[in-house]
């Protein structure tokens, strides 16, 4: 019911007394109101709905999901034909990507 898209906070500023941020969505930048995520820092990701940031993306939890996927795919790839190898690499890259970003 509520379209909300993840983006990265690249700048925090004040406008008309409100905490606002510039949010980068893979190159397209738009402003969002950050009043509900007072703790957010530049470089962190958030989900934005109708111009408002809803929550700070929890990178630790995201990495945990990637690890769970890794396990799932690893179990599958033990059947041993190598068809999941690329997949595993992609997931490992994702994990590293999150960790590097900190």
């Amino acid at each position: 019911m509520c379209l909300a898209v993840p983006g990265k906070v690249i700048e925090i500023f004040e406008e008309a007394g409100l905490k606002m941020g510039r949010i980068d969505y893979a190159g397209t930048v738009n402003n969002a109101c950050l009043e509900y995520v007072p703790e957010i820092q530049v470089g962190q990701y958030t989900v934005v709905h109708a111009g408002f940031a809803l929550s700070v993306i929890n990178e630790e939890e995201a990495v945990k999901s990637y690890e769970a996927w890794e396990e799932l795919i690893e179990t599958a790839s033990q059947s041993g034909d190598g068809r999941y190898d690329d997949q595993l690499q992609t997931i490992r890259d994702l994990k590293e990507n999150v960790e590097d970003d900190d």
Partner: protein
Amino acid sequence: MIVDTSTLSCPLPIMDHDTVQLAHGSGGSLSASLIEKLFLPRFDNAMLNQLEDQAVMELPACRLAFSTDSFVVDPIFFPGGDIGDLAINGTANDVCMSGAVPLYVSAAFIIEEGFAMESLHRILLSMEQAGKQAGVTVVTGDTKVVNKGSCDKIFITTTGLGSVPDGVMISAGGIQPGDKIILSGTIADHGMAVMTSRENLSFQTRIQSDTAALNGLVEKMIKTTTEIHAMRDPTRGGLATTLNEFASTSNVGIKLIEGNIPISPDVKGACEILGIDPLNVANEGKLVAAVPPDKVDAVLDAMRKHPLGRQAAIIGEAVTDHKGMVAGETLLGVSRIVDMPVGEQLPRIC
């Protein structure tokens, strides 16, 4: 092609008025001065310069392609282009989708009184530039000025005439099952450039309209083979609309491989934020063609050598199943209908 007309060394000629007045369209001396000072220098050619009521031309003995289109884009200046180059490119493209070489263009302007002379000059400069790039000549035209509020700033109607080379027969109805569907490059650039530059959306993007004349690319394709079964530029309604028109006109099914459709990350991001399906968004410098499988490699190769076809890709195939419909394959391997959009694309929150 991106031309920053503001850097061209051609200043606004000294005019009596800073803005366009009703009298500039009334046929009197102000009209004459506007035509002479602003329009003629831009479209300078023997046929137009005679200022007859019509252009009279010799044409080679050939089949003619003839097309007309009106341009009412808002905003009139957008990243990557403006209403002027759009009007030239759009008509050149409509003509050349038949395989024709576009030659002559007419241009009719409806201008709201009070429109800045400087803006009009800028639009004419970009029309001049676009015309040169497309190799078309503006040979006749008309200018009307209407009361404030009777039109929104400026509307342009262009009509184009082109000659179809011998042996070329391209129509949306000519697709055969087995034909490969080729797209010349990334989708949704124009529509998203325009939408994200509307003032109330406050976006900052690098997205540029793809407005460009495709006749050079088409020429390269036709040199490779005249066996192009269908060709169209996916403008309003986007790629989804064009593919659905192909499917229904040719009475074939089209199997779309969505993963092969090129899209720039910026455009994708903007589409995600606004909840818009890029398949439904307008393009102004892309073409879709249906080509028999034994010719597809050669055509793709030729396209990729042209600046406007570098990212050309096979995005689907005509099939005998689901006639008249376009089907995509979902990531779970089941098929889904790819429909035409119902109306204008609107930003949504849910």
